[in-house]
Each structure stands twice: as C-alpha cells, then as structure tokens.
C-alpha cells in the first residue's frame, strides 16, 4: 500500500477542524432563520462589533432548553409566556423585545372553506373546522405551534373537536410542514417569511392575514452568567446593544422579501 | 550451539474430541536420527498423531510429551507441513521469510535467506508471485522452504504428496532426501505404500488410533506382525 498519500489525507482530516474567532452561539427559531434576515444582519454584526454569531436553528422549545443547559450564549425566540418563565427561572438575564412579524393562513387557492373573507383569525379557523377542510399543524411544540393552539382555544374549538380526518399534526419544522400541506393541498398557519421563501408552493396561496392577533413578537434573551459561568455574557450584551441600535432598526425595517416588508422593529430604548 | 531436543518420548497420550478417542493411548519414542513413515488406512489417525507430536493437540490428562528441553525452546526447533499447504496472502518470498521476520530477524536478512531457500526448492523465478497463484507442487515446495528456514531439528509432514502428480512427487521426495541427508529428523505420514518403500527407514503402522507396529522398514515390509498390516500391504480394505 502506498502510505504517503493516505498519511497526508489523515493529517488533513485530523488537522484543526474549527477555527475559533470571537464567536457567540445564539439559538434562533426556524421561522426567523427562514426569513433570510439573518443573512443580512450577521455580516453587519461582524463588521460593526467583530462578533461572529453562530446560529443554531431549532424550535422555540429546544432553543429554551439550550439556554437552560448553557449550551448557547443567547436566544432569540417568539413565545412570550415561555420566555418570561425562562427569565423567572434564572436562566436568562432579562427579556428584550426586538421586533415583530406576523403569521398568515395559506391554503388551496380555491379556498374551499372560504377563509379569505373572514373578519378575524379565529373566524377563519372556525370556517376551516366547520367545513372539515384539511389543516396541517406543526405539532412540534414550537413557538408557531403554541401560537396556533392559542388561536384554536380563542376560537372555542378544543382538541377533541379537531378530528384526525382533517386536522393533521406533522410533528415537524415549518419547512417540512409546508411540504406536507403542499402535498395534501391543505390549510396551514405559517409565519409570513417562511411562506414567501418557500419553494414548493404547488396549489397553495396566501388567503388570510392582518389580524393583530397574528402578530409575532421576537425577544432577545442573554443566558445568565450566574447560572452558567462559561457563557460569553459580555459579547451577548454587546450584541444586544447592536440589536436595539439605529443601525439594526434601519436594516430590520428595510428588509424586503419578494416585494413585501417582513419585520417591524419595536425595541424600547 | 542449540541444544538437541530429541529424542522425544510420548507417554500415555490420548486425544479426545467430543468424548470420542481419536488417537491413543500412545507410548512411543522418536529417536534422534532417522526417517519415520507413519502408515495406515484413511481415518486411522495419522494426521492427529502428527499434530499430537507437534504439540498442537490437547492431551487428555495423564498423557505427556517429553522433549529434552522445555516446551517453548522445543517448539522453535520443529517444522510442520500440512496436507493442504497454507499459503499466506503474500508473495512467495515473503511467505518463506515470514517465520524469520515474525521472530525478530531483520527484513533484509530474512529476505536474503528466503531467497536462498527458494532457490534450493527451485522456486527462484516465482519469488515475487503471490503464493496463492502457485500450482499444488509449487505450493508444497514453498511450504517446505518455509518450514525449513528456521533450520528445525525435526520436520513433520502430513501426506505432503497426496495431491501431487508424479513429477512433483519425484521432485519433492528428492528434496526431502537431501534435507534428511543434512541431518534433519523426519516424521512423515502417507498411505502410498510405494512412497513408504522408497523413503522409510522406520515405519509406524497405525490403526484405530493405536500404533500397532513400530519397527524398521525392512522388517515391516518383509514380515509384518499384525494381520491388519498384512492386509494393508496386500492392498485389502481393512476396517
């Protein structure tokens, strides 16, 4: 056997696998990442502050767990009740609201349940249930899933009333659930960004949006250095300062996807 | 100078497998010099007997092999040729060199000696061939060179010519003859009566795992004592 080239290959494989800059790990939700805003913000953050932000794209539930375990330095999620509990539990230093976007309902372009003319989000859900029109739920305990369950509760349609014949729990991320809805030609609630970026729309169309109940508040939570001594608390605070700066406001408010504005900056300073 | 390991005495040796006695009890002595042929019908236990002498079979309690030196030293002074020669997946030269390299001889010295042994058995032109592509006769000669490279005092051979044609058998016997001339003690099994007549100085005749006769070749072929040996030499089937 010629050992030379194999040895070279081996050395290369084992050589330093990761180059460490001043990096900070932040857990974010799938919906935030799918919006594409991160790709605009991260290079600017690196340019302005020198921080390389490494994104862990997970569901809200897992993002909070990552923060509790101290495996990330900060989280950016959208589930107010769970976030407040996180801070109360001592895992987060505080909760800082940054911006919001909104959820929309999409479904078959023929709109068999007729939700396009609904007066509110809850009425739209009522129409879907009445007609027994297929509806795909994330079913993965994510922020989006929790939001959806809250809306069903507001509409007075409890879990037992949502029959398996039309209510399908995908147990998957936003993209996979959208693929499922596209395959079944079913209704689904999604954040606007994921919908706009989604490449496999099929017969689906955006049918209902605009109810303030569908607004989706993002908040930034640095992980507490008292709980986990190793977290990069200083970098996390530096990042927070940047996220609430005028520069961030301009970039967030100015972010346009497929001709539409996605996020509204609302951080209090 | 290496101490001589012979004679070997075997006392009350029994080999059992799954409760059945394959060979024994054996009481015998392998003297310092000579060429002993182990004869007997198929299934008599020739292979097991040779393996027993080589220390490859576990003896039932009570039996023992006694060399003139302790076991580990004696092992290094023995060679063994199996009926189907075991070819390592290496070149012919490296097969012959293996017993030296594995016991710490430098690669260069081992290859030099191996080349000499290959020449001696007439395989110098096949040195770089993979051993597994050699013919049956070549394999057996290669195995012989490999068994002899550490210059053992005693060489065991288990029907080495069973699968060889006439010419290969003749060549192999000539090699064996010269090895014996140089003083190597030989114990070989065969069920080819002609080969036994050509080579034997002594004969052990075994049947049902027992040595029925251990005598000089002359006496054995002239006047066998047991009726089984008489029948065997006549060419009858014996059970």
């Amino acid at each position, binding site marked *: *056997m*010629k050992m030379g*080239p*194999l040895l070279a*290959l*081996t050395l*290369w*494989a*084992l050589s330093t*696998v*990761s180059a460490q800059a001043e*990096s900070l*790990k932040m857990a974010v939700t*799938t919906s935030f990442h*799918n919006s594409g805003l991160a790709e605009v913000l991260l290079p600017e953050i690196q340019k302005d502050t020198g921080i*390389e932000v*490494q*994104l*862990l*794209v*997970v569901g809200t539930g897992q993002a909070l767990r990552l923060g*509790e*375990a*101290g*495996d990330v330095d900060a989280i950016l999620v959208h589930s107010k009740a769970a976030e407040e509990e996180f801070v109360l539990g001592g895992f987060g230093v505080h909760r800082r609201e940054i911006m919001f976007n909104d959820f929309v309902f999409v479904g078959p372009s023929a709109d068999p349940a007729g939700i396009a003319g609904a007066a509110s989000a809850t009425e739209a859900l009522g129409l879907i249930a009445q007609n027994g029109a297929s509806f795909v739920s994330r079913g993965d305990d994510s922020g989006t899933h929790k939001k959806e369950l809250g809306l069903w509760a507001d509409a007075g349609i409890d879990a037992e009333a949502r029959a398996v014949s039309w209510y399908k729990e995908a147990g998957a*991320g*936003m*993209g*996979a659930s*959208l*693929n499922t809805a*596209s395959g079944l030609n079913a209704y689904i609630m999604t954040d606007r960004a994921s919908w706009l*970026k*989604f*490449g*496999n*729309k099929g017969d689906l169309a955006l049918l209902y949006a605009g109810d303030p109940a569908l607004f989706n508040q993002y908040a930034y939570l640095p992980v507490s250095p008292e709980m*986990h001594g*190793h977290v990069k608390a200083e970098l996390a605070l530096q990042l927070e300062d940047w996220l609430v700066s005028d520069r961030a406001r301009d970039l967030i408010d100015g972010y346009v996807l497929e001709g539409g504005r996605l996020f509204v900056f609302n951080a209090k300073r | 100078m290496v101490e001589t390991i012979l004679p070997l005495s075997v006392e009350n040796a029994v080999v059992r497998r799954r409760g059945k006695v394959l060979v024994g009890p054996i009481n015998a002595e392998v003297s310092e010099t000579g060429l002993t042929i182990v004869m007997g019908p198929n299934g008599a236990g020739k292979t097991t007997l040779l393996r027993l002498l080589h220390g*490859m079979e576990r003896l039932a309690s009570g039996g023992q092999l006694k060399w003139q030196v302790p076991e*580990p030293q004696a*092992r*290094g002074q*023995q*060679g*063994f040729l*199996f009926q189907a020669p*075991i070819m*390592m*997946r*290496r*070149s012919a030269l490296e097969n012959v060199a*293996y*017993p030296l390299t*594995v016991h710490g001889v430098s690669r260069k010295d081992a290859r030099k000696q191996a080349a000499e042994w290959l020449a001696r058995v007439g395989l110098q032109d096949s040195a*770089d*061939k*993979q051993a*597994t*592509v050699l013919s049956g006769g070549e394999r057996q000669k290669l195995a012989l060179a490999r068994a002899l490279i550490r210059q053992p005092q005693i060489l065991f051979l288990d029907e080495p010519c069973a699968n060889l044609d006439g010419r290969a058998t003749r060549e192999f016997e000539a090699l064996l003859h010269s090895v014996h001339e140089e003083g190597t003690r030989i114990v070989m099994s065969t069920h080819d009566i002609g080969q036994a007549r050509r080579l034997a100085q002594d004969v052990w005749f075994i049947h049902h795992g027992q040595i029925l006769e251990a005598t000089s070749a002359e006496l054995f072929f002239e006047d066998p004592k047991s009726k089984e040996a008489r029948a065997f030499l006549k060419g009858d089937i014996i059970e």
Partner: protein
Amino acid sequence: MNDILAGLLHAAHLIFTLDADLIEISLRSLRVTLSAVLVSSLIGLPLGCWLAVQRFRFRRLVIATLNALMGLPPVVVGLIVYLLLSRSGPFGVFGLLFTPTAMIIAQVVILTPLIASISHQAIRDLWAEYHDLLISLNTTRRQRIMTLLWDGRRALLTASLAGFGRGIGEVGAIMIVGGNIDHATRVLTTAISLETGKGNFALALALGFILIGLAVAVNLIIHSLSRTEVSGRW
C-alpha cells in the same frame, strides 16, 4: 422528473462555478467523516481482529452485541452524545457541543461497531485459514493479530470504506450534536435537510448528487492508492 433534472443542472452549475459555500461544506463533510473513520478504524479493526483470535467466556455475547450495535439509530446516538456533551452534562466543561469535534465523536460511536463487526467477519475467515500455520510457527497472540491485520488489509479497507459510506451520508446524529451552524458545523447532509425543509428541492437534490459523487470519488481514490504496489492478484 423536472425536479430531478433541475437538481442535476443545479449541481453542475455549483461544481463548475466552484461555489465557495459548496466547497466549504463538502470539505467539512470529508474532514468530519474521514476523522471519524480513522478513529473508528483504529479502535474497530484491532477489536474485530482480537475477537476473531481470542476465545473467552462472553465472546459470543460480545459479538452478538456488536452486530446489534451496527443498527444503532443515529438519532439516538446523537441524543445521547448531545446530553453527555451539553454544558449541563458530564462532559460539559470541554465545551464541545456544536463543534465538529462533537460530530466526530457521534460518528465514531456509530461507525466503530460497524467497522469492528465487518472486520471481525473478514478476519475470522482468514484466521480459520492461517490458524494451524500460525500455531505451528509458535507465534504470540500479538504477532497473530498483527499478521492477520496486515494480510487481511484489503478486507479491512473494505470495512473502513463501509464505515465511510455510512458516515458521509449520516444526518440524524450530526444534526443534533453539530447544530447545523453555517460556517461552523454545516455539512452536506445537514444542508440537504435544511434545503428540503425550505422546499428548495433543486438545491437539495444538487447537494445530494454532489454527496454521492464525493462518496464514489473517495472510494475510487482509496482503492487506486491501495492497489499501486500489488503485482499479483488473489
């Protein structure tokens, strides 16, 4: 059919334009899996060989366990390694979670039983062949293992390559312990998973074709390297 064609075209485009991101994640895929294969081979090959040569009381049990572990679900391995490496887990102090090192560790856990099991089977046959000779030549156990490893190197290479095949295409475990972080722990398989989630089937498929091409290329390269010295064949 359209999607597949689009995938092929996209793959060709990415390759011919030497797309920087593509090269980065492909190299990372190779590094992670080659490192894991190397470590697993250093453990698995001698282990498989030792199991073939050595008789001991629980040998059959160990071999059966090893064979069963070949089917370890990567997701479960990923989860366990995750919990061990998490800051709140026993090895948290090393801060390895969400690094390529964590991905290598998870893959070593997945690949070692596979490599050990395949090499055990290959060496068992070789040992049956060599047994009498090596006993007759009065070799020690260590010498036997070294001889079998060397003479069985062709089969062992196959075992390692099988490990590589499983590792390079693995997504469940490395997604969990690596986190699929862009420019840090994103590899081909996790990128495929991500793009599929976004509904970008063409890009996902393109990455898939590149992954397959890479696996084939590595196999061909290693086979040709290992064949250069051989004069005969068996």
